């Protein structure tokens, strides 16, 4: 996967790059409007992570350039502006998603995976992790081709885990993903624990390996 990270704040830019740097990913960065503009004019990316408030320019112009040239790059806007107007404007211009700062990198990754999945037209409407297969159209999960019944939240949790496989995900990131960040009852994480317990039990009962590992005090890690 080839990504372009357009972000003027170096701390955030480096974090994103580090989080996405892994085998099979190429992460390029642009710290300002000109660099970003030059890059998108020449190269194609699977997804562009775009901060719209940039020095010397507006990120929205980059989206317009892409759309005017009919480039298929996915665009994920990250912005500190949380007004519906900005969101609608960005999405209407052709951005694929809009994420408000601050966000969890796990959330960014899950959103980005969703975009690239949607963009791939090779019928990949499913996510596969070893013996687990998630059918995105039917919102169904199978383990070794045997269906496992998940609730809506359990399904969302599963998808979130697979998008962030091999990463430690904080409990806060999970809570905000499942319940939204408006709901500030996340001070009680017991219910995350019970959700995860259920998912784990269902997977193991279906003969799946135990991929969910608790990381003491912080969160969970999904992986081998």
């Amino acid at each position: 996967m080839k990504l372009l990270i357009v972000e003027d704040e170096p701390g955030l830019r480096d974090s994103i790059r580090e989080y996405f740097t892994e085998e099979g990913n190429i992460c390029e960065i642009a710290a300002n409007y000109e660099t970003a503009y030059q890059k998108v004019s020449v190269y194609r990316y699977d997804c562009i992570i775009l901060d719209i408030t940039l020095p010397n320019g507006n990120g929205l112009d980059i989206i317009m350039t892409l759309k005017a040239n009919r480039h298929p790059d996915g665009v994920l806007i990250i912005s500190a502006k949380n007004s519906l107007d900005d969101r609608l404007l960005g999405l209407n211009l052709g951005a694929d998603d809009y994420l408000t700062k601050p966000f969890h990198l796990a959330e960014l990754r899950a959103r980005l995976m969703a975009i690239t999945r949607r963009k791939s037209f090779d019928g990949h409407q499913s996510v596969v992790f070893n013996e687990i297969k998630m059918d995105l159209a039917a919102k169904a999960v199978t383990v070794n081709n045997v269906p496992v019944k998940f609730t809506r939240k359990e399904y969302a949790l599963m998808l979130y885990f697979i998008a962030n496989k091999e990463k430690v995900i904080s409990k806060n990131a999970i809570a905000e993903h499942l319940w939204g960040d408006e709901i500030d009852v996340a001070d009680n994480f017991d219910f995350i624990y019970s959700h995860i317990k259920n998912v784990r039990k269902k997977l193991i009962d279906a003969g799946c390996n135990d991929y969910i590992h608790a990381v003491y005090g912080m969160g969970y890690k999904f992986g081998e």
Partner: protein
Amino acid sequence: MKLFQIYNRISLFTVVIIILITGIVYYYTISAILTYQIDKDLVVEENEVFDYVKLNHKLPQVFRSTDQQIYFRHANNEVVERRYINTDFKDVKDNENESGRGLISSVIVNNQNYEVRIIESKVETEDLIWIIFLITIALIVLIIATLFIINRVLIKKLWKPFYGTLEQVKQFNLTDKDTITLAGSKIDEFDELNNAVTSMSLRVKDDYKNLKHFIDNASHELLTPVAVINSKLDILIQTNDFNERQSELLGDLYETVSKLTRLNKAILLLSKIENNLITDDAQYVNIKRHIESSLNLFQELFINKNITLKTDLGDAIVMMSKSLLEVLINNLLSNAIRHNNYGGELIVSLNKYHLQIKNTGSETALDSKQIFQRFNKSAQSEGTGLGLTLVQQICTNYNFTLTYTFESPFHIFTITF
């Protein structure tokens, strides 16, 4: 006491005193002038007597008119001092004593010393003084009456612009969008006051706006560093295995950052609502549907706290922004859950006219004046302290009324549409 009451009192007092003093001065002046006149008459009369004696060498015949009497008395050897006296005047006709003015003098007739006493009635002088007194009283009464009328009619009218200004100042609300508009009056002082009030209100509004801008910008600018901290934490937890102590610390950090984020977002949202900047178009929404989806979202929390949920939801369609409705409902519901007891109860009822959320919780009523204040929260609360302020601000924007009551064991929040 009203200003013009005080003013009237002072002016009335002063005017009455001045009139009284004038009256007294008049009295003395006029009576002095009149006495001087009478004294001159008396001297004329005395001279007549002297002339008569000189000519005839005998005393004139004594006659008594209605206003003048002359008496002669044999004085022998005593020395008669020439002097004026105030004395009684015997009115012959009415046989009454009136006040009079007399001149005592002496005349020698045929080597005989006589005392001459000439007395004139002063009754006319006294009549005059009496009239002056009546005029003075009438003047006082007239002035009081005039002041009273001026007070009632004119001053009320004169002060009208002042009361208009006062009313506007009373209704002045910093967060309102409209400014004070004051009509010009014909009175310079009031115009000056109006100008001062208008410019002050504009200045205050401007300052307030700047302050709000500052808060907005500050909250906004804070979001980026918070985003950096958040992302660095996300990276940090990937790095290695942490021991228990480190993990706990990291968990605490995460929670603090997320609290900071929520707080920041709540401040930004509140300021947006206060400034009517939610441009998300208002539309007809059925509150029932939103409550149902919120309850669905919160269901784990009910189960977790073993809260019994009772609902009685009718349709209620209002015209408002969807996102604000969500904020409203989520805040009320999450409060009702957060402050609930383990195994408590939550009752949500909705109809066309109002939404009511009743929950068990602490045994005592909350201070209904305090709870809607910013950052007012119970010591053990983990919230931002802005939830109810947000709810109230939204209600204010849409002209809903939000009330809190406590009917043991329920805390009840009611929104009337």
